[in-house]
């Protein structure tokens, strides 16, 4: 019997499909390769439009140049601090609320869920937020970055779904033994939830690592910037640099430096990515399937 899989049309399709997907992979990776090549190239080669996939005039000088800028390291350290503190706060808040929401018997549960979900579809907007953060006195402080996004409703719902899926018997047994709710959460529920906790830490850490706008909006001292704002100022400076009156040598240095700064900003994510990617996917699936 001739199966559908072996028909000529299907074989042709599989070849075409392989080619299309190879192109997708190439297009996705190309900008990364190009930027790494630029970061390792001589500035004159870049300016002459010679750098494409491989470095031309191979040099580490740009890396040395960026590494010798104390502001860069201050900003890099700020990013690490902001990410760690913000993730810790976010995990605490999200875990507490998700656990409460996962208790079906709780009176007022629907209302508590509604409070969170409504904010997914309606928000106060930029201006009232700006006025709020400013009048709380959070400008030029870490709180402007770590507090206003302490709970992502998406992450909250993922975690709630996970907690709902845990067997209730263990918790009931612990409660009968006289354990408090706090004890049950800390000693029974959390140890069973390591997978989802890891996923949530990753989700939050990546989003805080990448964020720039809050810092851009609320920070006016350059020693408080995260590295993303440092990079943003380089990038923006290069496009509008002519109006500021930067001379030609500054412009070419900026091209190199931009590439290096981009590479250094992305490297932590690229390094951990292959190992943690499946957790991200699991997290999304959990959120998608269980809602």
């Amino acid at each position, binding site marked *: 019997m001739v199966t559908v899989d072996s028909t000529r049309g299907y074989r042709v399709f599989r070849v075409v499909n392989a080619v299309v997907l190879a192109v997708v992979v190439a297009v996705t990776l190309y900008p990364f390769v190009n930027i790494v090549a630029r970061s390792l190239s001589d500035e004159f080669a870049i300016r002459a439009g010679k750098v494409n996939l491989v470095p031309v005039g191979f040099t580490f000088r740009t890396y040395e140049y960026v590494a010798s800028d104390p502001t860069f390291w201050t900003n890099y350290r700020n990013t690490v601090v902001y990410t760690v503190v913000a993730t810790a706060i976010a995990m605490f808040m999200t875990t507490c609320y998700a656990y409460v929401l996962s208790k079906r018997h709780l009176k007022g549960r629907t209302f508590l869920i509604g409070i969170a979900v409504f904010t997914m579809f309606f928000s106060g907007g930029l201006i*009232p937020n700006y006025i709020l953060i400013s009048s709380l006195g959070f400008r030029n402080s870490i709180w402007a970055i770590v507090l206003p996004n302490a709970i992502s409703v998406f992450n909250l719902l993922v975690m709630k779904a996970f907690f709902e899926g845990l067997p209730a018997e263990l918790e009931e047994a612990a409660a009968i033994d006289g354990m408090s709710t706090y004890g049950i959460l800390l000693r029974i529920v959390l140890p069973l939830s390591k997978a989802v906790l890891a996923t949530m830490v990753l989700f939050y850490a990546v989003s805080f690592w990448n964020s720039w706008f809050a810092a851009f909006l609320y920070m006016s001292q350059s020693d408080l910037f995260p590295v993303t704002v440092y990079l943003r100022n380089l990038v923006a400076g290069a496009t509008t640099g002519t109006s500021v009156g930067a001379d030609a040598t500054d412009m070419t240095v900026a091209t190199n430096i931009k590439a290096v700064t981009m590479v250094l900003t992305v490297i932590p994510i690229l390094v951990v990515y292959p190992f943690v990617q499946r957790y991200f996917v699991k997290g999304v699936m959990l959120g998608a399937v269980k809602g």
Partner: protein
Amino acid sequence: MSTTEAIGVSPGTGEQGRVRPGPSRARPPRRTWRQALRRDWQLYSLAVLPLLFFLVFRYLPMIGNVIAFRKFEPGGSVLGEEWVGLRYVKMFLNDPSFWQVFSNTVIIGLLTLLFCFPTPIVLALLINELRGRRVRRFVQSVSYLPHFLSMVVVAGLVMEMLSVDGPVNQLLRAMGNDPVAFLQEAEWFRTIYVSSEMWQTVGWGTIIYLAALTTIDDQLYEAARIDGASRWRQVWHVTLPGIRPAAVTLLILNIGTFMAVGFEKVLLLYNPLTYPTADVISTYLYRMGIVSNSFSYAAAIGLFEAVIGLALVLSANLISRRTVGTSLW
């Protein structure tokens, strides 16, 4: 936060399978608030800080929108000085710049929807046809990668790719054309915006569809094969209906965020030369409010945008519930 919000929430399949703690069976004894508090006070106490968070950082700003109808002075009262009614609303409705950015927003939003909503479906179907597990995993891993980049890095990459010495202009020169300063020319902005959006989101967008594809019953394919359906017809009659709930859910969510077109990306990529096509409502109100200190005027525009967003998501949800029976809640 522009990262994950567009992907969440259940496709209808999960929603239907959920057991409801309905009143019919196993009715929990009705409790008064006093009894509930006495029994569950520890649970409620865990909710105090998160509720405070939502109140302060989510609901206070909503209330703060009253300054759209009140005269606000920097340094004065947070809620404004005096009622001025619809003055600021009338002001932006009569402002030609507003209608310019409004139509830019609608155009960019529509183009994004048109290109970035269907492509993940196509890519997911193609990846699904790959046989080797490792090849498949590799393609997936690579395609998810851009999703994890900071918007600043994405904007930086776009600028480098399109710079005068960048690869696109190298290609143009090799073909004997003059280099183009893409980011300085208004007619290129939409193309740049939409294609970089596709580059960044298409892979991540496949996750939900690939998950939905694995839930399709193999017996349906078998039945179709026995009926003599070709591979193509199997896709049409089995695969596509199988991922429809997920697609509809994502469509509703996309429509809901339609007016909030990537504020951060536009802010990073545009410049006064490209304002005629690039300036959108959110960037306009950012410049009006925070750069020029017209807080009330900008808040009025922001409120208008938020209300349209909410109306869009509610009506998309309603239409989808009436027509295809899938809804977010």
